[in-house]
């Protein structure tokens, strides 16, 4: 064999980078894993929303007049005047119109009448878990942002620790030992690096934005938070004499004429009904990564200008792209599927990394069977508890009950993993996931029998059944391989006992 063209890495650098990689991974892998799983599912949050409430009124578009009528109907029926009023316009992946106030949200029908209240408890639970880990909002966002930072750190230290990153670009030796795990972990990490680095970084930016803004406001603007954000997201126009109902329909019609290429996503009425009220329409530019631009109108429907996210400074355009890059909603269904697969790969990278650590300990004569079992409990406990809470939500569970069920269940599964060992907890975890998914689909079908064939239900129900069936095959294989619950505990666990 000839001389390699690849540069040699310093063994000291590799060793130290591996140490840094391990320190970070062992500290935060549980929370990072939860965020990756929930983030992967969150890419499809609109599909889950539709599935959870399939009988909501749907439409491809809504007329400006109907949207205004529904919005004002909801606004005038509020017990307390709402400081903001939102219209979510129908989108290809969520063809529904929703009117939201400070306290509640209702569906609008295509004729401008108001339908029932919006209700998707499991999707909300999932999003709250991904955004805040169910902690108080600013604290939760900051913790989630910090996890994004550590994922960036893991990517950096992983790349530094990779002595033969180019030489081994496609090496993949299949098997069930540590070499195979290392190949799986390293190859997937390297080739999907653009995805997981950009996702971790944008997640960190979104999560840490509040803390950063507080620090910058203190350092530069005497604590004025608004002064930090205004250059990017614009300032509220100083308007007077605007009292009365806002001319929402007039604003919508005007924007459709000015920018016929835009897809309207939201209308936001600030301080509706008051003297200083104004209307912001968010128009999505379908050929861009930005979430859209704000087009501002006074209450009479006169155009005041746009914020500049689409055509302003490069900083505004980058800031406007962060959300979409993170959540993968910039390229329709193909990009959502790609994000779903990349998310699944990131789950595999996380799991294989920790599995390598435990294998290495075993090989060094320092097995940690309880810790390994606990980690396996987390790996399979998260999907198990998500699927069981889905079944619970479809059967009527919501809010704090879902949160409590998830966290108590996960702690229980992780604890049980440490007690009964990784093989057994894997079996029970997969089994519970299969049961949860099947129960969710059965309960949903019983609750909405007339909607079974609808576009809101069929794709998601089929997907859940296919996942359950695939996991069922895995479960069968685990049993066949003699790693099921009937098998005695591993020698290491026995030794630990």
């Amino acid at each position, binding site marked *: 064999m000839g001389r390699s063209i690849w540069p040699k890495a310093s063994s000291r650098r590799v060793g130290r980078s591996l140490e840094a990689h391990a320190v970070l991974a062992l500290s935060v892998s549980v929370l990072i894993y939860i965020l990756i799983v929930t983030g992967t599912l969150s890419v499809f949050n609109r599909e889950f929303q539709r599935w959870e409430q399939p009988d909501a009124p749907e439409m491809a578009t809504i007329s400006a007049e109907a949207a205004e009528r529904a919005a004002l109907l909801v606004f005038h029926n509020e017990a307390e005047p709402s400081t903001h009023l939102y219209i979510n316009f129908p989108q290809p992946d969520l063809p529904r119109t929703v009117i939201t106030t400070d306290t509640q949200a209702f569906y609008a029908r295509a004729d401008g009448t108001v339908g029932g209240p919006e209700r998707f408890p499991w999707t909300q639970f999932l999003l709250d878990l991904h955004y805040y880990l169910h902690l108080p909002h600013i604290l939760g966002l900051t913790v989630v942002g*910090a996890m994004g930072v550590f994922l960036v750190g893991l990517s950096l230290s992983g790349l530094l620790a990779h002595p033969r990153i180019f030489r081994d670009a*496609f090496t993949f030796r299949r098997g069930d030992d540590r070499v195979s795990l290392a190949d799986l972990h390293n190859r997937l990490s390297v080739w999907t690096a653009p995805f997981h680095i950009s996702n971790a970084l944008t997640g960190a930016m979104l999560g840490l934005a509040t803390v950063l803004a507080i620090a910058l406001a203190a350092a*530069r603007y005497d604590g004025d938070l608004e002064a930090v954000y205004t250059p990017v997201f614009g300032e509220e126009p100083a308007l007077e004499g605007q009292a009365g109902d806002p001319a929402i329909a007039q604003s919508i019609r005007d924007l459709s004429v000015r920018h016929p290429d835009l897809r309207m996503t939201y209308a936001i009425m600030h301080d509706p009904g008051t003297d200083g009220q104004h209307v912001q329409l968010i128009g999505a530019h379908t050929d861009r990564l930005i979430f859209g631009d704000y087009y501002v109108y006074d209450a009479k429907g006169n155009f005041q200008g746009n914020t500049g996210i689409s055509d302003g400074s490069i900083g505004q355009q980058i800031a406007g792209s962060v959300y979409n890059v993170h959540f993968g909603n910039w390229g329709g269904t193909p990009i959502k599927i790609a994000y779903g697969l990349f998310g699944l790969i990131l789950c595999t990278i996380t799991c294989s990394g920790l599995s390598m650590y435990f294998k290495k300990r075993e090989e060094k004569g320092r097995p940690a069977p309880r810790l390994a079992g606990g980690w396996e409990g987390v790996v399979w406990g998260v999907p198990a508890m998500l699927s069981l809470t889905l079944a619970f939500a479809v059967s009527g569970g919501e809010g704090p009950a879902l949160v409590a069920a998830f966290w108590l269940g996960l702690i229980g599964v992780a604890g049980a993993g440490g007690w009964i060992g990784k093989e057994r907890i894997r079996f029970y975890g997969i089994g519970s996931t299969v049961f949860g998914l099947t129960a969710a689909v059965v309960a949903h079908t019983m609750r909405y029998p007339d909607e079974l064939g609808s576009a809101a239900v069929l794709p998601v129900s089929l997907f859940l059944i296919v996942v359950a069936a695939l996991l069922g095959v895995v479960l069968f294989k685990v049993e066949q391989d003699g790693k099921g619950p009937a098998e005695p505990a591993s020698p290491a666990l026995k030794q630990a006992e």
Partner: protein
Amino acid sequence: MGEALWPLRLLVLALSLGGAASLYAAWKTKRSGGFAVGLGWLLLLAATICAAFTTGADKGAALGIVTVIACAAGFLSFEALRNPRRQSKPREPKTAEKRSGLTPAWWGRRVFVGFLVGPIAGLAALSVTALLYVSLANAGLSASNNLVVAFFAFPLGWAGLAVWAGFDEILWRKSAVIGAALLAPLPLLAISG
């Protein structure tokens, strides 16, 4: 418009596949594959640039990167499936190594490093970022661009310090570096803020 772009989209796919194939071929030779490696990266770069013309430049480039990752993942899967599954050799169970750690001092050091990597490195990165923001504002950078620089600098700075804290073996040195990053900007912020 959409119809007219199909040839360009197919070209993006072809360039991505060609680039990944070239890198795969270079890897297979396991020796002086410098030309194939260069060609591979060049084709992948060309795929990303061409993709930028299929729609808006930012969205197009992102689509190109997703296509490149998907093609590389395809070759990786091919390589994985091509290899027969190896049987791991049964290993002699090793006797447990005597561990020197697990003393209160060892635990104390671990907890301290945890704090160093987490909140202390985070505050240090925040402090440096605030100084960078104020300095760039004083230098005349527009507020929106400056804010985005800060958005990137804070998490990247924190991640860099966290990796450094795990990388460096000498506790006092990493504590000093992170401590300096935390404290040094504060008087400068007081003066220039």
